[in-house]
């Protein structure tokens, strides 16, 4: 008797996540795997000189010269309240582009290491988790991808980088 019910709830979950299925750029922060929708990723560049911008949030590493265009670079580890990124030869900047109400934003995201481009099917994507009532808002997580026993947090980069959500997140984690 229980079987049809489970099947139904599963299928609706799959339907809800159908739009999430696609290719993701997988990267690492510390020991965790994350993914960014490939359509938001413009390019990956090696670490270059970052000019510190004073009087900005700590997670903003500064600005770089991307072929004549000045773009900000953020340290995703610091944004998530982790230890600042220690640069190694694996450290790269993922250049993302997303649109907001204020227009297109191009931004560099400093990550420990990029891994590969993964194709994730809807049935391998779980809805975002809840971190409990009074802890952080998980709005910026689109879902959780399961690939080869790995768990990949699929990020909505626009949400991560803009708005109060992210602000509150930092406060919640550091508090």
């Amino acid at each position, binding site marked *: 008797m229980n079987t049809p019910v489970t099947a139904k709830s599963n299928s609706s979950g799959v339907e809800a996540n159908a739009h999430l299925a696609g290719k993701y750029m997988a990267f690492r922060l510390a020991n965790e795997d994350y993914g960014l929708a490939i359509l938001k990723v413009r390019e990956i560049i090696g670490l270059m*000189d970052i*000019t510190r*911008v*004073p*009087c*900005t*949030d700590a997670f903003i590493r500064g600005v770089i*010269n991307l072929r004549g265009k000045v773009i900000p670079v953020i340290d995703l580890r610091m944004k998530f309240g982790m230890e600042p990124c220690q640069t190694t030869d694996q450290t790269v900047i993922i250049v993302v582009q997303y649109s*907001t109400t204020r227009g297109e934003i191009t931004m560099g995201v400093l990550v420990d290491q990029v891994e590969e481009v993964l194709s994730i099917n809807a049935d391998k994507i779980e809805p975002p988790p809840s971190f409990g009532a009074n802890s952080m808002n998980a709005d910026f997580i689109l879902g959780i991808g399961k690939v080869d026993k790995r768990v990949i947090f699929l990020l909505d980069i626009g949400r991560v*980088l803009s708005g109060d959500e992210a602000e509150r997140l930092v406060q919640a984690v550091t508090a």
Partner: protein
Amino acid sequence: MPAFLMDSIIEELAAAVVMTDANDQESIDTVRRCLNKLREAVQAGGEPEELVALAEACLALEMRLGASGAGTDAEDLSALSEAVGRLQVGAAAAAKSPKPALAKAMIPAAAAGANLASSATSPQRVTRDEETVGLIGEFLSESEEGLGRADQILMNVEHGGASAEAVNGLFRVFHTVKGVAGFLELTEITTLAHTTETMLNRCREGTLKLADERLDVVFDATAMVRRMLAELRVAVQDGVQFATHENLEGLLQRLRALTEDGTPVITPAARPAPAAPPAPAGFAREPAPQLEPAAMPSALENLRQTMTMTAVPSGMQGPETGGGTKLRETVKVDLERVDSLVAMVGELVVVESMVVNAPEIAKSASARVRKYLSQLAKVTRDLQDVGMGMRMLPVAGVFQKMARMSRDLGRKSGKQLRLVLAGETTEMDRSIVEHIADPLVHMIRNAVDHGLEPPEERREAGKPEEGTIRLSAYHEGGSIVIELADDGRGLNRDAILAKARSQGLIGPNDILSEADIHMLIFAPGFSTAKQVTEVSGRGVGMDVVKRNVEALRGRVSISTTPGQGTTFKLLLPLTLAIIDGMLVACGQDRYIIPTLSIIESIQPSQDMLVTFADRHEMINVRGQILPLVRLARLFGASDAKSDPTQALVVILEGVGRRLGLLVDEVVTQQQVVIKSLGQGLGATRFLSGAAILADGRVGLIINVEEIAGTTVERRQWSASDPTPAATSL
């Protein structure tokens, strides 16, 4: 409700309406707020019924103001402005007598205005084919150019008398307008242009003289055509019928009467001329009609119209050329293409300097390579000049608008004035030219209203009754100066101080330098005017000047001599795309300071350094005590030099205030292409942008105005800094 409270609400409303721009939602919201206040005041009761009726006429128009985003058209605004004008007059009358006949008499007019407004809300929709729209577009831009030329000629005629050439020039303008308008079946414009042309033709034949009343009517006709063109533009954009014009008949009658026998006819809508500039010798002037209440709203409307006059493409009109203008061959190019070309040239300049300065090249270059490189540098420089030149426009167009406006202002304020223009051919970046008109409007209004004295006062002071305002543009160093000098009464230091104290802008015991006192007039809401006039005095103008000029990375300075006049000097960059900057080092970081803001740089000796309470650092530069700001502390750099005598102090000036900025050293001086810092950084105080340096890294450009402003506002901020270095010198 006490009468003065009602008065102040009406005043505020009138101020808001005058400042309203149909495209500026914020200003429209301000008007709405004022209308709400008025509604509350009326609902509270106790007002004379006449006043209530007038107020209701204004309120009836409120719904025609576009809700957020919906847009508001100029016609709605002018209807509102008329209604408010009537309300003002009514309120003034109500204050004089308890049972005002005048106010009562105005109710029907006000109601008619409201009715007209409501009947006009649904103009008939018209579909125009693409070709017609294209033709109308061309007609609009051509006519606007022509009207600009007409204004210039009219002003020359007003001062120097009519010449055959001038009359011909005017005739041609109206003739062209008539021709094309006729073709486009714009009956009203055609009729007006035709009637004006007929009169001008008589002047051309020599049977009539273009002066006085006839000159005025041509001025009015130009203004009317311009207004109708603006309405036409709106009508085409909205795809509605071109509305018929109410005041046209009066103007046509005046024109016809003046064509027939030359007897001046004063219709109620005639432009009052209490302060016409003195007519050239030999021309008698008609006695000026009294300023009638009915003329008020239309005057108000004129004023706004002058302020929103559409930009006339310049470069066509030489100064003082009258009717004969020299045409330059021009090509129309998409602005975006020009901009991208200029941006690429900017990049080229940077890359060129990267190549030339690369250590590998410097090390290995032979004499021949060096020669080629210097050639490359020269060509790049030339290319940059040409590229910049493509964005340049002479300031003549803007100056011309100011001339027209000052004429109208002089007439409204009852002061005689002459605007002398100089250096109209000076060229500036087109985006600067576009943004300079607004501040100039406010500055001229300010000069007319506060600067120049009324004729009697001038006579007593032994000055010519006619005040002179000199508007000039010239190059100074690497920047452009726009100077506005009046020969009026000068700034009243004590009045400014007293007003600033009463407004709480400064403390009762604050000691301010002369420059600081002058800068007070730029504070928002500051006005020493005892009376708010139609022209100015509401304290909204000068802060606009300051904000706009600073947005253009320019500076404002004031010099004034009591009794002799005031000079405002706007120091503007040649272009917005490139600045001359000084690259300074502070610890590991490099920053660019705009050379325009730098007065000098000095290596201080120990005896120049002063501290107060061991924390507030100051530097004594030849007797001038300036606050000393440590860039390292401001920007949180840890590895900068802490001993000022080992470092360098750059003396900067921003918002009229000087300060010393402590940096480690000056690295070099270079031109940089300004880039936006990009979105997503959040607020970047103290920085105005970024630039790619010669080594390909990003350099940050320091916002001197912000630092200077902050230093003076919060003198204690070095004390609040937790760094232990704060106490060590």
